[in-house]
């Protein structure tokens, strides 16, 4: 068409006008650190594996997850999921059920027989791991994946450590535990069971180990100084729980008093209930102050477990205990009142904390032990070069997840140390806190509740209390993830740009800015649901 001059123009010719020159600041795509990831003691990329789960690609999700943590089926049961307490979704409706999705993935992997990824090459280095608990087996897994030859020495007869001897079956079925342990062994990790290491230096020398990771659990129950008659039946919680794994179940009698307010106290009480006893927890402070997780306390109460708050045990006899009532002072600390009562008790279980047997460290030069734990540098190495430690042995919160995290960190540092290098963890991104999100865009979707076992069966059997999610509910739960700080390809930036200055690269490839036309209005930043874009000043 021969067009009239000036008044008629060719289509789309404004591309010649590069409006990007108007800009004083530019949007850039970033990845912020989701609060869950930052919180996770095991260092899981939770948002990352949920991203795969959201699309129903559970195997990719599981593979992404197991890059950091080889035990999702265990984690999905026993992890206290502090990730959920910091989940930004909690400020909209309820946190994402991260733990339940993790368990679903773990169970799915076991059901479908997914295998962990074997190392691509061998380093020729020998690493000793002492203790087949969460920390030790986590380290063994990561070291093995890095190509090192790994041998685990375990004093006990089975793999799992405190996961087996400290956590009741109704919370962690043993077939699950065993399956996830074996999957690590299948990577080529050598395991010597019933092999207690008495002297670490000798063992290392004998086995020609280049480095060692010590992860001995806190198996020794703390005793309290309670005046007791000879006939009084007093056991410690850990011994009790361990004996539950054996052939002969412990004899506790009908009236079992559990002394303590931690998770172990509750585990013991619930275990006793399942054995037909009538457990009573005695704790010197209030429910609000107890260290046990509230959901565990709640479940225990549902199962009919009684608690005496603000009480200390002052005397134990054959069939009774003397209890002194306490009262909170103005600082909230319990003080004795001088008021006593006597209660009937067939046995007393002390759940007052645990210690680690540090005997294997005797005579190791450079080691520093304080308050029953070994001091380690930020790289998890003890004062003795080549000997690293983690889990219950080092100063930290004691739980399975922390142990697994220690194992991973130690493995990376050991790997670097073996090469004469230093492992420098990647710099953490800025946290994607709630204010960085535009939560308008998320649909309303309350958390999925996992099925709970009937109360009667909970009181009488060791069947697992908490069920798992089925596929559809796991998918629902995964999709509740806000993907904080990380693009989930919602197309908002692509859509809301008034200047079409966002290029959509296609599935899985995210987006790119076309700075030729971007005027820097900032709408993409404001309307990004997950806070994965930020404005940066242009250099002028």
């Amino acid at each position, binding site marked *: 068409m021969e067009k009239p001059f*000036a008044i008629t123009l060719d289509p789309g010719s*404004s591309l010649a006008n590069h409006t990007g020159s108007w800009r004083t600041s530019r949007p850039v795509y970033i990845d912020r650190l989701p609060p869950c990831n930052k919180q996770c003691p095991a260092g899981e990329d939770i948002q990352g594996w949920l991203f795969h789960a*959201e699309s129903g690609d559970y195997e990719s999700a599981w593979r992404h997850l197991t890059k950091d943590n080889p035990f999702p089926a265990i984690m999905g049961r026993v992890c206290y999921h502090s990730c959920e307490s910091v989940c930004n979704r909690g400020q909209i409706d309820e946190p994402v059920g991260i733990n339940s999705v993790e368990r679903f993935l773990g169970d799915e992997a076991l059901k479908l027989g997914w295998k962990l990824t074997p190392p691509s090459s061998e380093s020729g280095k020998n690493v000793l791991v002492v203790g087949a608990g969460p920390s030790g087996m986590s380290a063994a897994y990561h070291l093995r994946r890095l190509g090192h030859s790994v041998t685990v020495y375990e004093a006990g007869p089975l793999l799992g450590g405190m996961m087996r001897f400290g956590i009741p079956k109704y919370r962690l079925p043993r077939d699950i535990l065993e399956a996830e342990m074996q999957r690590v062994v299948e990577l080529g990790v050598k395991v010597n069971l019933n092999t207690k290491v008495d002297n670490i230096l000798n063992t290392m020398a004998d086995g020609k180990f280049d480095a060692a990771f010590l992860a001995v659990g806190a198996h020794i129950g703390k005793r309290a100084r309670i005046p007791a008659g000879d006939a009084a039946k007093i056991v410690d919680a850990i011994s009790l729980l361990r004996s539950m794994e054996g052939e002969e179940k412990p004899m506790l009698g009908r009236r079992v008093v559990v002394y303590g307010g931690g998770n172990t106290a509750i585990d013991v009480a619930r275990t006793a209930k399942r054995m037909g006893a009538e457990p009573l927890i005695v704790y010197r402070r209030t429910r609000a102050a107890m260290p046990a997780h509230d959901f565990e306390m709640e479940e225990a109460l549902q199962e009919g477990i009684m608690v005496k708050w603000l009480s200390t045990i002052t005397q134990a006899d054959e069939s009774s205990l003397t209890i002194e009532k306490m009262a909170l002072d103005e600082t909230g600390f319990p003080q004795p009142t001088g008021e006593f009562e006597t209660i009937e008790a067939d046995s007393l279980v002390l759940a007052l904390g645990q210690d680690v047997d540090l005997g294997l460290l005797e005579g190791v030069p450079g080691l520093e032990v304080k308050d029953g734990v070994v001091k380690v540098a930020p790289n998890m190495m003890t004062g003795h070069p080549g000997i690293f430690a983690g889990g219950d042995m080092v100063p930290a919160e004691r739980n399975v997840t922390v142990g697994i995290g220690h194992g991973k960190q130690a493995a990376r540092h050991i790997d670097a140390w073996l090469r004469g290098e230093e492992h420098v963890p990647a710099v953490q991104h800025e946290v994607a806190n709630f204010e960085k999100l535009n939560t308008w*865009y998320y*649909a309303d979707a309350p958390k999925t509740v996992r099925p709970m076992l009937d109360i009667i069966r909970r009181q009488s059997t060791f069947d697992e209390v908490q069920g798992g999610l089925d596929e559809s509910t796991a998918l629902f739960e995964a999709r509740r993830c806000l993907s904080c700080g990380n693009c989930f390809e919602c*197309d908002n930036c692509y859509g809301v740009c008034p200047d079409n200055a966002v290029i959509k690269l296609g599935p899985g490839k995210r987006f790119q800015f076309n700075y030729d036309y971007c005027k820097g209005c900032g709408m993409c930043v404001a309307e990004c649901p997950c806070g994965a874009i930020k404005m940066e000043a242009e250099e002028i």
Partner: protein
Amino acid sequence: MSFQPVHFYQTGTFTVGNRLLEASERSVQANIERTNSLNSGHRACQGCGEALGARYAIDAAMNAARGRLIAANATGCLEVFSTPYPETSWQIPWIHSLFGNTAAVATGIAAAIKVKKQKGQMGDVRVVAQGGDGGTTDIGFGCLSGMFERNDDVLYICYDNGGYMNTGVQRSSATPPAARTATTMPVGPEPGNQFGQGKFLPAIAMAHEIPYVATATVADLRDLEYKVTKAMGMRGARYIHILVPCPLGWGAASEDTILLARLAKETGIFPVFEAENGEITGNLKIRRKQPVEEYLKRQKRYAHLFGKKPAVATIARLQAAADKNIRKYGLLDQEAN
């Protein structure tokens, strides 16, 4: 709910797209091959709601018309920023004639198409007319009403930013009460635009009993696309009134354009609904109701309401108007009432 929301629990209907949605459930704007009817390089201000609304609407219309669409455009920002010689941003056949005659020009186009079709010289081509609120509710109102009355086969889209922004932010009959413009300055005993009956064109359009009337905002893309698509599926005169915030005229941050459109809807200040043959058939419910202050205080055109002595009475009148909309158009779910 005036349209079928996507029941998708991550972002549902709210985001532009989502990698997890079925292709059929994605918006036109999410498509990597969308028309971009209004191309890059246009000279709209940063964060222009009208540029965004126009691309949303015309891309959706192009999608519905399978690329066979002609647009007539009134004088105004949209025309000026899109077609200054020697470049145009339009990728579709497009004509600008005058400020006040766009509906009539579109009528002519539709008439020509009808004849060309009869003669077998042209396939089915659809017509859209578009203009700002000045070109629609004021100077173009006569032609628009005529087009409605004749029920010409034209979809007219008004991009309402509440004033004559192109000429320097003067008042139009769509300027809301109390708003500052260059001709309703915030001075004297009644600062800002007067309170009055206003001129809510969607209601006037409904009075013509044309096949379809709808309102929409740039904050609800899915709703907007649904309405354009629905309108394109009908014949006769159709009218869609889209609220498009203007950062310049409203004195708002350029990144707040969508937020303000959302707040206009969530406060009830701008009712989002649709009507067929003069009767309301659906509305978009308020999801998280907000007081009008949340909307007003982000705009400098209302800054005089929030001075040292806040204009409590004026704000209350604006709140009352929003509440009236909520009642009149049933914008709150019953249980939320």
